[in-house]
């Protein structure tokens, strides 16, 4: 994309602080923003809130990662060494919950907060106060969730999928608190998603049509739709749990006419779209990074949009592929197998489009690009194992084994998490005004790629050989694979320390970045200075459609 095609940078009101930004506006009768900690607590600025989301998410990633390391340490060799089964189950459960709801989702929301207004040329999110509320609900929710570990009887120990009746009749007393914390996190997600949708639909710069939006914006629009559609279903099902536990109802008890499997249907009606919530924004990020570093426009913009929409629609029709062995009638089994397989097609379109974008480009391999490329390869591997799982008869052998664990970590860790890291390296210059240390970035990348594969690749084998998931101890034939996985996990974990170091270093200084930090980049965010001033696009930019 030639540089002169880019929209002209709009003059900035001020490059300085919050105070300066507002003062120039007509409504200067408003209070000056408070300073210090209060400023963060009370802020309505999308960039500050975005940063808070990202920091929160990183913290949760570490906490969830430490739980994973407890799991991996116990599984290092057969036998019970470090923890008791009760605690092991809590670690597995909390690891899943924290990573999904605390690390990956808030990271994407944080990126959306930062980048969606910048990419559509809006002064802020559509509903800035609501935005702050969505964020501050999260620390409340997760403090409560983590505190259940200290309650008598321990925290949630029934897996992140909390199947009834293990989580209702047989759950620990803290389950009620777990449910309430999930309610709070759910409210946060719904409100956050409403805000993002309103921003995208209503705040685009004059002249920017829907089909001019960067793909990150498109994928988030669709993700936000998924969130609003399914988080309430989660809220509904946990409310039913709450009532079964505390008020003697029988939703999930056959004796009263209910059905434990009803729980699973409701949970996965939420749960499957949920996993796409964790991958669609990743697709958007990769679709921004690959064209930038291939110096070539994204191939098949329109088909990317349609593919994303198809994935979202299909995601409502596949939920019971998580339930192939619960004993559904044959027709249901077939229906869900076919619909699930269909998802491979739009996802394939995406992969092919990325590769076509690379074809005949002029490619360089900076850290963001490395993470994006690793994403394409490793996510696709995870997608292949997903397709194998979708074959219902074969899933009778795969289900609830480490093969499934391998599948979802491939799509989640070198998938979702790598895309987040790619995004961080890609946009750090915009956020801080400095490039991230390239050498450290490369170290981080290579140690992560090796670590991640060492951790999760052997899980395919242990799973196929018959190792069930969620067990603290296993029979001897799985010992070697587990040892390798555990070593890999510690390596991958350690390499994340480099990541933190890179970020801190970059915030504190480094090579200065210009407005257009990457030569091949072409979206609106690159027209504002680096670091982006607190207030941008207070006067909407004139948007001129570029290549797609």
């Amino acid at each position: 994309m030639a540089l002169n095609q880019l929209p002209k940078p709009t003059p900035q009101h001020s490059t300085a602080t919050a105070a300066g930004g507002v003062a120039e506006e007509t409504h200067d009768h408003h209070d000056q923003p408070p300073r210090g900690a209060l400023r963060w607590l009370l802020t309505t600025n999308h960039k500050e809130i975005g940063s808070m989301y990202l920091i929160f998410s990183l913290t949760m990633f570490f906490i969830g990662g430490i739980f994973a390391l407890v799991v991996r340490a116990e599984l290092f060799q057969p036998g019970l060494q470090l923890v008791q089964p009760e605690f092991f189950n809590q670690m597995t459960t909390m690891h899943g919950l924290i990573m999904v709801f605390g690390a990956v989702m808030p990271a994407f929301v944080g990126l959306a907060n930062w980048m969606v207004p910048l990419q559509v040329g809006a002064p802020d999110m559509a509903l800035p106060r609501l935005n702050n509320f969505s964020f501050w609900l999260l620390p409340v929710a997760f403090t409560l969730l983590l505190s259940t570990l200290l309650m008598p009887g321990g925290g949630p120990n029934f897996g992140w999928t909390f199947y009834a009746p293990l989580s209702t009749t047989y759950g620990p007393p803290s389950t009620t608190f777990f449910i309430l914390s999930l309610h709070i996190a759910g409210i946060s997600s719904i409100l956050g998603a409403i805000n993002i949708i309103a921003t995208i639909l209503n705040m685009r710069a004059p002249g920017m049509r829907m089909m001019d939006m960067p793909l990150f914006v498109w994928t988030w629009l669709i993700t936000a739709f998924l969130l609003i559609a399914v988080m309430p279903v989660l809220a509904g099902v946990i409310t039913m749990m709450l009532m079964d536990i505390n008020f003697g109802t029988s939703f999930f008890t056959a004796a009263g006419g209910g059905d434990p499997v009803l729980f699973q249907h409701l949970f996965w009606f939420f749960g499957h779209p949920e996993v796409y919530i964790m991958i669609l924004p990743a697709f958007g990020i990769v679709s921004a990074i690959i064209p930038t570093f291939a110096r070539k426009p994204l191939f098949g913009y329109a088909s990317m949009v349609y593919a994303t929409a198809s994935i979202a629609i299909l995601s409502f029709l596949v939920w019971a592929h998580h339930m192939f062995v619960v004993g559904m009638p044959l027709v249901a089994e077939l229906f869900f197998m076919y619909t699930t397989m269909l998802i491979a097609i739009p996802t394939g379109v995406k992969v092919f489009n990325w590769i076509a974008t690379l074809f005949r480009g002029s490619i360089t391999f900076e850290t963001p690009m490395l993470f994006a490329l690793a994403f394409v390869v490793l996510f696709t591997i995870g997608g292949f194992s997903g397709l194998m799982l979708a074959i219902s008869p074969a899933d009778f052998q795969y289900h609830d084994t480490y093969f499934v664990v391998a599948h979802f970590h491939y799509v989640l860790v070198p998938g979702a998490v790598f895309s987040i890291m790619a995004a961080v390296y890609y946009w750090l210059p915009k956020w801080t005004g400095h490039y991230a240390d390239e050498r450290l970035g490369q170290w981080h990348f290579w140690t992560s790629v090796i670590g991640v594969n060492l951790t999760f690749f052997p899980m395919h084998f242990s799973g196929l050989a018959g190792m069930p998931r969620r067990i603290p101890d296993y029979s001897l034939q799985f010992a070697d694979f587990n040892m390798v996985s555990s070593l890999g996990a510690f390596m991958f974990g350690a390499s994340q320390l480099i990541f933190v170091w890179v970020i801190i270093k970059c915030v504190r200084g480094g090579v200065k970045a210009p407005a257009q930090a990457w030569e091949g980049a072409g979206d609106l965010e690159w027209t504002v200075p680096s670091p982006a001033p607190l207030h941008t696009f207070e006067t909407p930019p004139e948007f001129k459609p570029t290549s797609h």
Partner: protein
Amino acid sequence: MRRKLALMTGAGSLCGVTPALANGWNMPVGVTDVSRDIHSLHMTIFWICVVIGVVVFGVMFYSLLRFRRSRHTDSANFHENTTVEILWTTVPLLILVGMALPATATLRQMYDTSEADLDVMITGQQWRWRYEYLGEDVGFTSSLSTPRAQITGEEERQEHYLLEVDEPLVLPVGRKVRFLMTADDVIHSWWVPELAVKQDTIPGFVNENWVRINEPGIYRGQCAELCGKDHAFMPIVVHAMESDEFDTWLADRKEAAAQEALGVDREWALDELMERGEQVYNSVCASCHQVDGSGSEPAFPALAGNEQLLSDVEFHIDVVLNGVPGTPMAAYRNNMNPVELASVITYERNAWGNETGDAVQPSEIQSRLE
């Protein structure tokens, strides 16, 4: 000393593993027609994915190398091509249809539970399996038999560590066996890889599945649905016998069951009850209340030195027969015969320093069950 032991077990386990590794990295082919079908389905999809992967990643790495900046400075500007887009939508679709056809056939076969020669009811309980041969009056529970000391590492782990039980499920070769599967408490999942049967057991509902085993042998599996604390310690062992051997076995079991039923009416000595009770206790109750009756507070009460229990036989009998609703303590009245119930209660009242001297008689239990 402990460290030395740990080292030895470590080394021991490595030796034990190496031969297993030779075929321990892929799905087993198994010993039923269905398991073979599933295995070949698995290998087919796997190779299809490998081929697609090689092509896709091949083009990708070619582009990365060929069009890296140092070799290719002017990037092209194309960004659309309807022909290829249609192509790479339809070709995968055809591949998927190709996969779906054999998968559908296999699935239909798996769902055909009709015309079985034998019905076995499988009930999952925290944390053991109960098997009943329907219409034959034979039933028993099957629990982990690996000693605790191996789990904690005080003893060397044996070849079938965690995959061994006190009473395997015995099945005939060559006959179609229908499984009716349910659970008493939470959801479990009965899985034996070599038989390619994995089916959740849902409390209050019944699932069906079936096998026709082609080769005699011993096949091992595990519970495959998180069911609480001892989910990892809930193995399954199936002993597949030649058909006539199986008939003899079944007849013997029937005979033994009949004998035990006769025993209900007679007066049992304390020693006899204690002996039988210890068996039952260690197999059924110890997973929660511990072998030494110490329980693990607060979730599972101690039975050793439990004042309330020892002072009140009625309460004790009632709890064991009827369970405590809403807790993991299940009602055992339908899971055990009067002899087992009487002996386990007697055992609890006289073991671990609980010296009440009470001998609860099977006949007494029998009369309560009616």
